[in-house]
């Protein structure tokens, strides 16, 4: 499975393409695609160049967690720096993205 991730143009924030093509902040809320549909979703996202600074596909598991070779990197990107749990989405009052923690 794949998800589309991007950085918002105005502030660089990491976001994901959600169901209905809105952007969501949490990877767990991202839309998940099979390969062919993922390419279409990425193309739709890249066409929104006035909103984002770039986008690419990432591998995700059935439960929405990062998967594949880049899983660790994408976990950190989704949560925030492991050395600063007070920063990034992991620091959000609502619990934000799940902290990637130690490993």
């Amino acid at each position: 499975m794949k998800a589309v991730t991007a950085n918002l143009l105005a502030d660089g924030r990491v976001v994901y393409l959600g169901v209905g093509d809105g952007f969501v902040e949490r990877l767990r809320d991202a839309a998940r695609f099979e390969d062919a549909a993922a390419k279409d979703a990425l193309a739709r996202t890249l066409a929104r160049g006035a909103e984002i600074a770039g986008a690419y596909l990432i591998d995700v598991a059935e439960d929405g967690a990062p998967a594949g070779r880049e899983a660790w990197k994408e976990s950190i990107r989704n949560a925030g720096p492991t050395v600063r749990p007070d920063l990034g989405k992991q620091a959000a009052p609502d619990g934000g993205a799940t902290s990637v923690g130690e490993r």
Partner: protein
Amino acid sequence: MYRYDEFDAAIVRDRVAQFKGQVARRLSGELTEDQFKPLRLMNGLYLQLHAYMLRVAIPYGVLSSRQLRRLARIARTYDKGYGHITTRQNIQFNWPSLVDAPKILDELAEVEMHAIQTSGNCIRNVTTDQYAGAAADEIEDPRVWCEVIRQWSTFHPEFSFLPRKFKIAVTAAATDRAAVRVHDIGLRLHERDGEAGFEVLVGGGLGRTPHIGAVVRDFLPKEHLLSYLEAILRVYNLEGRRDNKYKARIKILVNALGVEAFREKVEAEWATLRRDAVDLPPEEVDRINAYFAPPAFEALAAEDLADEDGDVARFAEANAAFRAWRDANTAAHKAPGYRIVNVSLKDPDIPPGDITDAQMEVVADLAERFSFDEARATHEQNLVLPHVRLRDLPDVWRALDAAGLATPNIEKASDIIACPGLDYCSLANARSIPLAQRIGSDLAAHGDEQDIGDLKIKISGCINACGHHHVGHIGILGVDKKGEEFYQILLGGSASDDASLAAIQGRALSADETVAAVRRLIDLYKERRAAPEERFLDAFRRLGDAPFKEAIYGVH
């Protein structure tokens, strides 16, 4: 320190206005990201793992208290309350928005700062000895020549699109604290027959293909510095590879041609240059030199001149923490009764090189009160108060200690250079900061750092080597193995006068194994050193790598 003249002020102001327009056009959709990206990079604005990152130039690492306070304000207002000192004596902010970037540049311009040429294939911020103008062992102040190079290289039309980025470092001291041998051009000011001139080294560098720079000219009269640099840059600009970014640095060209052939090309180019059109007239050098006139050091009373006398010595006698800090974090000053104070940004609980807005203001206050309004950023990711009276050391220590800035570890094992690594960098393969922190904590737990002495550990999260692992006495390189973080250990590197490249010792280890292996290396060194004064690096060179490899991997 140097102050902007009308030209400096105008070009920085114009650049801010230009970038403001470019940002507006990007936000309106008039510019695509492909069109905008090279423009933002020319203004130091990267897109990193979590957000934008703005790299601000600190020319040759010199800061006034006013500038430091402004950096604190920027960290607090536009970022998340901290900045990160880099190995080019710059500062990075990890969380600015694109919308705020022009405002930040406006604020920087008000205090004579900018982010120009902190990215891109151009001549980057010139670095130098962090003790410049204060060091007891320098023959003259190298910042004069750094400033000359800064003015020459800023917006130099011929060198704005080089094959690759270009880094120059200058030293004028007997001890090289500026790592000149691992720069694209290293300049070492030295004396011959009573006259000062430059030894010119070319083709040093780290990254995926590390090289020690070669001497292209052993003595260049100072007045010809710019024309000779221009000749080197011309040869590189014409003959450096542009087909492969990994082979585009000048070190590849020097190595491919051989240093003799490269030297011949430079000398031939130099012979055709109109030197009088490039080299600065003596009166212009004098004008710049005047900005770096030594501050008005006091003629101090006898009891203030020596460590062994007076109130400071008595305070040190009674206070072990102060004594450890004084011994580790202060250095000899050229003016009697003064010391150079290092401000450690290497508390093991904090990412190496990170400094909060409040800490910046503490250092700014201390610079203003005790150091002729000057601070420095170092390439080893610390700060320096260059001119502190010996008798003021207790007050400075108390203030630094209260702010968490007095860890007594300068040039010790926990004074680790570490790149941002996978916690922040989109290029990294592995995290660097947590490993540095764990090694620092291990040293603190063993309490043997002062006994170990001079041991340089440098950690990079990928092969680009921003953490200078090739020149660590112990270098650590993060690698990715099927999505897992592992670390290779290298031994025997140095970036100083005895420059050498560290060698990989064997298979990569997990983070846990790496921390344990570093401890075993330290224990081996303590056991086998010839005398307490023998450094880790010297013991390694004397004993060879076999026992050290065995310490890392065990006997097989």
